[in-house]
């Protein structure tokens, strides 16, 4: 079908005697066609501009709706750990802390694993295995986040819960970081959220790392091999330094995902507005607080405090994503486009 239509187009093109074309179009028709051109250009340009308007609109509307809370609590909103809908005393510290800690836990787990996966796909795996493994890992990125949440709550949390007494006894006994691992072995809490977030961002980070590893010029790698370097030494001392900025950019992009992830976290973080050092304790994240409480928040101040949380989340992710894009863009400059 495609081919016949293309052929038709070709025939039509051939059939037009070329010198006759200019004279066939009357000035009026030519003006009309040009007006159409202008209108089309304005239409598409306006819609492209809509993207910028949307971002500004999101930031502005959240800020205005959250203004009541920002104004009422002042800067104390950021470091108050209060969250009491009855007395209408709200502070953002617990959700901000939970968002940052669960996301950083996720990165601590996800970055080395993603690096390993990217290294395996780009340097080690035989040609025929690269595509299937890459696709399988990307499949993980396509699973709806609510399924991660259900799996986390019903399947993974009990498993982790049974391992947590061990964490208490061993890691909890360590000085310093031990405090992170002492807590109730419920299987629900920031550690669970962090692990599930890690599984969710691994496909993103590893895909970007793989893409940037593949742009390293073969000549650089071969020179190192020629000097007798091992595969690991090439990866560590040639590939990684060459792609460092973009790798960090990819990690930031993963961080952006983790910070805003809602459903998976809502299921497993515990939704407790208390500040705990321990990763095993229940906590809360901005996104989880919004998902749980927004539809049921009836007083204006409660709604406004939640909107203010949304605004804070938007600003944090915006900054992280801008940094990520800038870092990825720097490698992309001379090296052709880098995926995502």
């Amino acid at each position, binding site marked *: 079908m495609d081919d016949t239509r293309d052929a038709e187009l070709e025939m039509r093109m051939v059939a037009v005697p070329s010198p006759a074309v200019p004279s066939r179009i009357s000035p009026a028709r030519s003006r009309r*066609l040009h007006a*159409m*051109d202008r209108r089309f*250009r304005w239409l*598409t*340009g306006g*819609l*492209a501009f*809509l*993207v*910028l308007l*949307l*971002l500004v*609109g*999101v930031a502005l*509307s*959240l800020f*205005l709706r959250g203004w009541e809370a920002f104004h009422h609590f002042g800067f104390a909103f950021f470091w108050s750990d209060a969250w009491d809908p009855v007395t209408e005393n709200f502070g953002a510290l617990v959700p901000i802390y939970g968002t940052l800690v669960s996301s950083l836990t996720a990165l601590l787990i996800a970055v*080395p*694993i993603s690096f390993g*996966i990217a290294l395996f*796909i780009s340097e080690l795996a035989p040609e025929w295995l690269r595509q299937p*493994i890459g696709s*399988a*890992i990307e*499949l*993980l990125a*396509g*699973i*709806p*986040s*609510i*399924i*991660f*949440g*259900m*799996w986390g709550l*019903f399947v993974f949390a009990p498993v982790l819960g049974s391992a947590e007494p061990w964490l208490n006894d061993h890691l909890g006994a360590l000085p310093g970081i031990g405090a992170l691992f002492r807590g109730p072995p419920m299987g629900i809490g920031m550690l669970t959220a962090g692990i599930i977030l890690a*599984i969710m961002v691994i496909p993103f980070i*590893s895909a970007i790392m793989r893409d940037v590893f593949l742009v390293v010029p073969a000549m650089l790698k071969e020179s190192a091999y020629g000097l007798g370097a*091992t*595969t*690991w030494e090439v990866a560590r001392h040639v590939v990684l330094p060459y792609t460092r900025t973009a790798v960090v950019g990819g990690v930031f*992009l993963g961080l952006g*995902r983790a*910070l805003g*992830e*809602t*459903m998976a976290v*809502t299921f497993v973080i515990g939704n407790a507005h208390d500040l705990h050092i321990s990763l095993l304790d229940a906590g809360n994240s901005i*996104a989880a607080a*919004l*998902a749980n409480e927004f539809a049921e928040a009836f007083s204006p101040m409660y709604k406004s405090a939640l*909107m203010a949380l*949304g605004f804070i*989340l*938007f600003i944090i*992710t915006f900054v992280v*994503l801008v940094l990520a894009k800038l870092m990825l*863009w720097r490698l992309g400059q001379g090296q052709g486009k880098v995926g995502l």
Partner: protein
Amino acid sequence: MNTAKNARYLRRRFWNVFNLGMAMATTLFGLFWLVWILWTTLSYGATALNMELFTGDTPAPGSIGGLRNAFVGSLLMIGVAVMIGTPVGILAGTYLAEFAQGSRLAAVIRFFNDILLSAPSIVIGLFIYAVVVVPMGSFSGLAGALSLAILLLPVVLRTTDEMLGMVPGTMREAALALGAPHWKMIVQVSYRAARSGILTGVLLAVARISGETAPLLFTALSNQFFSTNLDKPIANVPVVIFQFAMSPYPEWQHLAWAGALIAAMAVLVLSLVSRFLIKDRSPR
């Protein structure tokens, strides 16, 4: 001297094998989660699958029912979101690729489009709550569809831009040299050449929004009953899954797993089809 050199060589070889072994292990580790999660969804979901799922509506606690109203609501909202988001995304992408190619403005819009693409979906839900739900005075299916459209838009825009960018300039020049106006050249030459790529982008975008829960929580809300009225709260698969999974009733949890299985299947089939389309295009 010789043994020292030998030890160094052995150490390097050891670290090489060890680290590469770790790389292989991490890959298996990643695949392990994929298999575990898919297996869980399949085994929990399959036991809850039956015809009632598609014929009955969401039940009261303790009675049996299905998810018909949720499926219909989701399809309606996704349909409306596609009808709104696709033309906007395609036209905006057209501007970047055909009119503003290489300009500073295009670079800025591309940059912020990528930010919008990765922005937390729950924040988009809040935005729609503030600008649609509050003025309308009620949660509604339309608000849900609009928030999905905003999530769909940047994906379509980006793929349209990229796919049009791959259309050879000579094809455009041929059309322009024949006296075709610019818009006609775009519609009849560029779009036709990039058609399957743009379609892939739309499919990927639909795959993305069909599992989205967070933005629907306070835009479409949910509805216990069958409804096709987009002015009012409407049932949809993700929010029903969320409510039922968090509930203490086993019947509801079973339904949640069945819904999760079907949502996951839909997303996976969509991404497989779009992958297939990409493959199909590349040799041509």
